[in-house]
């Protein structure tokens, strides 16, 4: 059965969905967290005088910068150099990780403090550093929780969204020796005290960057906890790791991005702390590590280029009916939700993502809430077309079964005589299937989905119409 489903080579959305739906605590957490996030986002956007105009300005800026990413990276590197910051650009993960490890080792650090960075998740930096004998200490509370649990973040802005206070209390008690308490304040302050010692003695701090500005060689880092500010400013060495798509052209464009990000990500007028980071302070040093992997390919794609407008706010995740039930882990990719579904095939290939790209109802909520107005449903649909044409993915059992059912459905539904003739037969079949299997079993398709299909109505519409 496992083999028929595609084995490890496929992200099995159906299995992941079954697991997620069976976890009642996860469902309750997701429901509460995503609903709150949407409400707060709408409230902050309504208060702001400039949200809509910033949205348009940010889109315009991104659309100008995406085709010029290489050029902007050169300009950014030159200006960062003038500020005394050393910048390195890598296309592959291995080189980026090796450079980071080399910098850390040469500073004699055996641990680093790290604030939340999706790119370091993408390049799997933590595992690499551990192999090198360097302990990465996550300092964002959500990241800290998932790191000590040995898990991965489940949301772009709320990494521990899937965990309840009980689970966290148990985790802190078992792994960190904290007296058991389900009081959220106590849990937070325990983490604060634990991490404060690390901040004070760290030699190297690693952060991401929300935006990088080409014309001034600066980066902007936004956050609420203040851990990024501590990681940037307390250690002697600061390393910022980010993707090339974070580069924008001009400093005057930056506020538009900050404006839309704070409202869309956390429903705030502005995040608690926005740091504009450039030249290192006296006796300190700073490095920027830029990763380009797959970004140029996406930027050059006439359809998918707009996916690089993304500011990683997570709003599309919060509003997505699939994400609201599946959670980030179900996507088995660094970026989850609709934007993750759009990006994943570029990084993992269509064969692995053949089911993932079906994990969308194409309802369009994500498009409407996206601050950068990325047409996510259209991009997901485009993936489905391309996946069908992909020689490796198109021949998978899942795709073939889906194709057979789609063709059959299309044939029957496009011919009224045929559908009228098939309906009583289907009704008989489902009645028998329910007696034998206990549900409306569909051969082959039920290998993939345990969903009980809705039975057919006792009479067709036409039968009811003529009876009246």
């Amino acid at each position: 059965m496992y083999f028929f489903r595609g084995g490890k080579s496929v992200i099995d959305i159906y299995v992941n969905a079954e697991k997620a739906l069976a976890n009642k605590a996860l469902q309750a957490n997701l429901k509460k967290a995503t609903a709150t996030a949407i409400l707060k986002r709408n409230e902050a956007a309504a208060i702001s005088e400039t949200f809509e105009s910033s949205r348009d300005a940010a889109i315009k800026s991104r659309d100008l910068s995406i085709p010029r990413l290489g050029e902007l990276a050169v300009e950014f590197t030159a200006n960062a150099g003038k500020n005394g910051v050393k910048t390195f650009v890598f296309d592959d993960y291995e080189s980026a990780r090796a450079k980071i490890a080399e910098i850390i080792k040469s500073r004699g650090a055996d641990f680093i403090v790290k604030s939340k960075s999706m790119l370091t998740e993408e390049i799997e930096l933590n595992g690499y550093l551990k192999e090198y004998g360097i302990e990465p200490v996550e300092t964002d509370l959500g990241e800290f929780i998932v790191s000590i649990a040995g898990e991965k973040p489940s949301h772009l802005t709320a990494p521990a969204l899937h965990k309840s206070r009980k689970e966290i209390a148990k985790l802190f008690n078992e792994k960190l020796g904290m007296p058991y308490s389900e009081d959220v304040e106590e849990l937070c302050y325990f983490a604060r005290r634990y991490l404060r010692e690390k901040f004070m003695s760290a030699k190297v701090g690693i952060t991401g960057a929300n935006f990088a500005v080409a014309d001034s060689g600066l980066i902007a880092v936004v956050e609420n906890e203040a851990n990024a500010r501590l990681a940037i400013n307390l250690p002697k060495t600061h390393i910022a790791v980010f993707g090339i798509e974070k580069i924008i052209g001009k400093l005057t464009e930056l506020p538009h991005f900050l404006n839309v990000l704070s409202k869309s990500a956390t429903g705030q007028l502005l995040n608690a702390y926005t740091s504009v980071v450039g030249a290192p302070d006296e006796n300190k040093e700073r490095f920027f590590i830029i990763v380009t992997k797959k970004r140029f390919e996406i930027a050059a794609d006439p359809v998918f280029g707009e996916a690089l407008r993304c500011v990683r706010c997570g709003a599309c995740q919060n509003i997505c009916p699939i994400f609201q039930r599946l959670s980030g882990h179900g996507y088995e990719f660094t970026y989850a939700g609709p934007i993750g579904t759009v990006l994943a095939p570029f990084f993992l290939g269509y064969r692995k993502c053949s089911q993932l790209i079906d994990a969308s109802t194409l309802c369009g909520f994500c498009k409407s809430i996206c601050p950068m107005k990325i047409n996510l449903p259209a991009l997901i649909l485009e993936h489905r077309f391309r996946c069908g044409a992909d020689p490796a993915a198109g021949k998978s059992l899942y795709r073939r079964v889906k194709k057979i059912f789609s063709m059959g459905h299309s044939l029957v539904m496009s011919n009224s005589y045929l559908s009228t003739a098939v309906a009583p037969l289907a009704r008989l079949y489902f009645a028998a299937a329910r007696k034998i299997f206990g549900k409306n079993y569909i051969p082959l398709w039920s290998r993939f989905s345990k969903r009980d299909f809705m039975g057919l109505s006792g009479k067709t519409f036409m039968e009811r119409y003529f009876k009246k």
Partner: protein
Amino acid sequence: MNEANIEKFKSRFAYNGGETAICENYDSAAEYLVGLAGRQKNGEDGSVRLGLDSRRRVFLSRSLGVGLALKLKTALERVAGLVLADKVSDESDICVASASGLLVQDGALIVDSGRVAHEETLLGGTSVLIAAEEIVSYDNMSAFFEASAAGKSSVRPDKAVIIAGPSKTADIEKQVVQGMHGPRELVCIVLRIHSGEINKTL
């Protein structure tokens, strides 16, 4: 700053979790600080403050300028059980520094990291930022960054830290907890005295 801007800033700053006090003179500012020291809980529950001590410690940043710092110091020294710390640390209950600008629509403060050390707005239980009357207020971030990029602001863009609220997290079941890694409270004191006048009175 006109009244309308102050009111708007106040309400937006409150929305972000900050508190604004309008003080007409330094005595009332000092009184306000004393009130803050009395009400804030750091050290009592041992939760935020790392070094435990029953006395209240207040740190005054050099960024306040000699005139204002001296006036506040004199007023604060009269308060029993209050210690003026000579350096900022996690043991400080209140860290007082100066803001360099206001973002009215965003309800945020601009801090010049060239004048105010990062630790002065990161450590301690309560961060107090003083905005003198002549402080520049910008409608929003765009106005500030345009002025800063054009060299028309006293704060260079690479030294700008925009602070819009206390340190907080909602990572556990979306419950907001203030003081995650930074100060638990953020207070803006709008001081309606020209810094020129402060120096004159010395």
